[in-house]
């Protein structure tokens, strides 16, 4: 128990004094999460909106596939991307393995189904009469679709926040594709793993507290956004 109290005291000291390692790992984690979420949002939100607002053969299969991909383990995504960007993979010459862009590719593939599936749900849940009302007021098909997306903005934003939270807190993709190289690809989660292995429990705990604070912030934002939608 005393060890835990000492470690906690040291952890708080590291955070308060803005220890350079803590700041570096937290900064890299936030950067990876922000870029990955942005890229996944740019693809996933329009794709989800199209799936939700259009009828096409195989739509049910597509939605089922998306929902299935939500539960794919992060290490599996890491392995698949590893086989693509590894030295002998088709994207090997790009030398993306063990780089931050390499991690980002994996994270985007991890959260793309999440952003898309939650956008489908949010847009589909928006009142069907919203689109009809827009058309009845003279909107074109494109304008009416845009209105439906705007009306489901709280649900879509919640999808983005959930995706950001997933990237910040995951370890499998970052470990396999980043290689956990200090001062280069190490993130909060992979740093926790390595510091526990090395016996630096105080630093691991400090990083854990920072991660917890980020997760808490994301969740508070999530609740706030959902409250904005009146849900």
């Amino acid at each position: 128990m005393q060890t835990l109290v000492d470690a906690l005291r040291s952890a708080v000291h590291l955070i308060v004094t803005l220890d350079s390692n803590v700041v570096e790992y937290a900064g890299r984690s936030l950067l990876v999460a922000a870029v990955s979420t942005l890229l996944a949002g740019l693809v996933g939100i329009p794709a989800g909106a199209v799936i939700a607002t259009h009828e096409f053969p195989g739509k049910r299969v597509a939605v089922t596939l998306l929902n299935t991909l939500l539960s794919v383990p992060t290490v599996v995504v890491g392995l698949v991307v590893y086989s693509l960007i590894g030295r002998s993979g088709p994207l090997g010459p790009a030398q993306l393995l063990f780089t931050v862009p390499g991690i980002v590719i994996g994270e985007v593939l991890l959260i793309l189904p999440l952003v898309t599936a939650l956008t489908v749900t949010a847009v589909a849940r928006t009142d069907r009469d919203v689109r009809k009302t827009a058309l009845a007021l003279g909107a074109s098909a494109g304008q009416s679709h845009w209105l439906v997306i705007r009306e489901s903005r709280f649900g879509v934003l919640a999808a983005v926040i959930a995706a950001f939270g997933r990237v910040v807190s995951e370890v499998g993709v970052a470990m396999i594709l980043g290689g956990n190289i200090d001062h280069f690809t190490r993130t909060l989660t992979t740093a926790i793993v390595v510091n526990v292995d090395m016996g630096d429990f105080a630093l691991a705990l400090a990083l854990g507290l920072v991660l917890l604070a980020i997760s808490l912030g994301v969740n508070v934002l999530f609740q706030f956004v959902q409250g904005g939608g009146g849900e």
Partner: protein
Amino acid sequence: MTPRYRLENVVRRFRQLPSGNTVEVLRVPQLEVQPGEIVAVVGPNGSGKSTLLETMAFLQMPDEGRILLDGCDVWAAGDSVSARRRCPMLLQRTVLFQTSVIRNVLYGLRVRGVGRARALPMATEILRRLRLEGLAHRGHRELSGGERQRVALARLLVLRPDVLVLDEPTAHVDRANAELIDGALRELHRSTNVTVILASHDARQAQGLAHRIVTLDEGRLLADTTDDGRHQA
């Protein structure tokens, strides 16, 4: 004179689920509406009133037949957006967008490309006419049922359309709101000679407002009567 509307052998069918069978819900051999006319469509629930109105507002394409708007076959011309802009419709189920009253009223003008500087005075004037000026910046959730219906009507009136298609505009409002809505429609008709197609359960409203009453039952035109009791050809 070219009629505002001419419906020729219009048929509408829906697919029934889960059987997949189609069922005919509307058959109108011929119907003409002149510019400036107010036509009330009456009939029991499920008689095809909403389908007829949505077809006349170009929200539904007929499975057979033609709808001419000022002599132009809209669906054949492939320009239903322009036609919908000339004939906006108040749907039976009122949906306000998740924003303020004034932004709701501005929506139709915005999709027509009207700039905010021109649109804002138009919206303010309509809100005043419907006694909603104090609610301009209220959220859509903060309105009573009658206020919601008046905002929905304001969204149409601000467009100064050639035709107004109204599906039961006073069905879910109290007497005072119904009279306010009727008054606004009369005033608009007097000042712009707008053509109005109106579905109503309310015989008092239909007789008080309309020049003609069209009766539907099971998707068929049963009667077409002018306000002096004459039957139309």
